[in-house]
């Protein structure tokens, strides 16, 4: 028996900001969930199950927050699951929810991911004082910066590429009312003049710390038939993992990422992603990851990703727009960041992306990664239902 087609019929997110001091965690997730239900014109009673994700518990210090969020998300009397795959969690949460629909376990599933970074400090959460280890570094930037340098060496990319990505993403964010950073006076010169934090990564090439939540309503073919607005159809979805560190690990282009993308393309019948996919919303927490992932995801040959960026191909009006929403560089509620990528892909093929809509976007890839480039999750959504 073939799988049930999965449709996205509701998308909701909060206006992402540095600190939402006016709401509890429950209030924050509720806001996104409510907006997704409103978009789908559904009520709590229409939801069969809830699948929630967030980043590591240390990031907010609430062990198993899903326990206390069951009532805020209308999950009483229904199955509720939590997914946990570090930074990629928003993507894998959506895929777990999608698989419940595809397997016909449930007809309509609410999926949601969130982070309230203002209640903690992620840099602290990533730098616990483990005994017998030599403390050398704090936070994610220093961890990823050597891999960016390795990419620059391997590809021969000029050192201006990172600033082009940051300048583009911040301008895209100006068109997205939900984005955290709205830097109206951004210029390329300002990006290039911003301080080096972890050379080769500049301040303006890093992501902010945000409070926010993102939710989607996923449903089956019958549910999509009742939807008030055009649905986004899942054409392929996959997750892959690999160890954080192992002999032969390629941090610049991890094998798990390549395999994950290949699986999605196989499911969706994509022969040439550069030709067959109209836009990409990918997880770029440090600007250089745009050219790196363009190669890892098969949009450019090895060493060629930066050439697409440099030529303007990834601009909003380019041939392959990347991070139309402004990306992680403009909004980073860590646990939600993966789902925001997936949701943006859905908004694009539904024609609901507003000012950052890519004209004629029919197939859009959503991508997330997490851990030490260890977990990958991706989906490809389309304006039309899958063929089979």
């Amino acid at each position, binding site marked *: 028996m073939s799988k049930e087609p999965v449709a996205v019929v509701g998308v909701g997110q909060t206006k992402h900001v540095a600190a939402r001091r006016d709401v509890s965690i429950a209030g924050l997730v*509720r806001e996104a969930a409510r907006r997704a239900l409103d978009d789908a014109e559904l009520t709590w009673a229409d939801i069969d199950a809830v699948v929630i994700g967030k980043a590591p518990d240390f990031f907010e*210090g609430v062990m198993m927050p899903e326990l206390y969020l069951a009532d805020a998300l209308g999950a009483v009397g229904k199955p509720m699951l939590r997914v946990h795959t570090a930074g990629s969690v928003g993507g894998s949460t959506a895929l777990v929810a999608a698989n419940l629909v595809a397997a016909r376990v449930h007809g309509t599933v609410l999926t949601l991911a969130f982070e309230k970074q*203002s209640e903690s400090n992620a840099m602290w959460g990533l730098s616990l004082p483990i*005994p017998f280890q030599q403390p050398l570094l704090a936070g994610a930037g220093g961890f990823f910066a050597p891999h960016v340098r*390795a990419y620059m060496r391997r590809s021969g990319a000029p050192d201006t590429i990172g600033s082009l990505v940051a300048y583009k993403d911040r301008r895209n964010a100006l068109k997205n009312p939900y984005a955290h950073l709205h830097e109206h006076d951004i210029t390329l010169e300002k990006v290039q003049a911003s301080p080096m934090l*972890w050379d080769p990564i500049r301040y303006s090439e890093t992501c902010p710390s945000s409070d926010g939540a993102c939710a989607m309503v996923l449903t089956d073919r019958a549910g999509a038939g009742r939807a008030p607005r055009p649905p986004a159809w899942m054409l392929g979805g996959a997750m892959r993992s690999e*160890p954080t560190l192992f002999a032969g690990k390629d941090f610049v282009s991890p094998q798990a990422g390549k395999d994950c993308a290949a699986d999605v393309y196989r499911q969706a019948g994509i022969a040439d992603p550069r030709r067959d996919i109209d836009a990409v919303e990918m997880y770029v927490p440090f600007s250089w990851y745009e050219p790196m992932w363009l190669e890892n995801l098969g949009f450019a040959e090895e060493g060629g990703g930066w050439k697409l960026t440099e030529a303007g191909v990834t601009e909003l009006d380019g041939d392959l727009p990347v991070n139309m929403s402004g990306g992680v560089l403009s909004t980073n509620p860590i646990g939600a960041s993966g789902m925001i990528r997936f949701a943006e892909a859905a908004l694009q093929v539904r024609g609901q992306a507003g000012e950052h809509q890519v004209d004629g976007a029919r197939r859009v890839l959503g991508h997330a990664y997490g851990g030490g480039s260890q977990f990958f999750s991706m989906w490809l959504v389309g304006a039309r239902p899958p063929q089979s």
Partner: protein
Amino acid sequence: MPEVLKAPLVVEFPFTRSLGPVQSAFLTGLRERVVLGVRTTDGRTLVPPVEYDPRTAEEIHDLVEVAPTGTVTTWAWNHEPRRGQPLDTPFAWVLVRLDGADTALLHALAAPGPDAVHTGMRVRVRWAGERTGAITDIACFEPYDAEPGQPGNHSGEFTEPLTGIVAPARLDYTYSPGRAQSAYIHALSEQRTVGERCPSCRKVYVPPRGACPTCGVATAEQVEVGPRGTVTTFCIVNIKARNLDIEVPYVYAHIALDGADLALHARIGGIPYDQVRMGLRVEPVWTEGARYPDHYRPTGEPDADYDTYKELL
């Protein structure tokens, strides 16, 4: 077999909590010696209050005051109070349904012993002398035989409401790095770097984890590597981390020690930070009594050819 190391690990952080409207009113109320519940649309009063109806998922914010007296619905005796608990002498954990409420609140009951506690017993709030807007503003409950207290008629509106609290969290672990890393650390004390070779793929892991993550088999064969190595990639750290006592800028590098099949991470010194490069040959610099090399410095050898370390970034 050398001793497996162990040490305490304390994970501690003052998390902050934004309260939202309902918890804000509840905790501000405690500060003012008022216990507030929330009314559901079907007329139940929930204490402590919640923002969303557990039955219908509706948003609820109709606050009502309940009495400071109530009935124990169940309990458990705590023989040995621990740090941070409400009382420092043995007490009962109780669920108390306050007069006017339909649900019960978890708190502590001061009582001389378990024989003095029973389900159905009447209790009242003992307020803390200093109140800040926290559940600890109720110091505990105490036995109470008189008439039920009368709830006031508070609306839940306060001047200067509390909007956030600090919720310090602390976890105490006993951490052990395990056999393989303990052996690695013991060898370091003799200024030697010892990894382990995978019996299947023959790769040498430094530091060793006791198993090969690729093959999934245990590793045991000890292999001394280094002391020299090659900088495979690096970054220059320009921002000072709160919990790190290292002057900036400094170079954080991946170093493939000679004989190792993946890079370890260390600081580079003995060379201006802006002259560090991929391929630089380095050796460890030890300081008296330190567990790890303080940093690695240039050996003066010619730089390694990129092709010799490109798989070890």
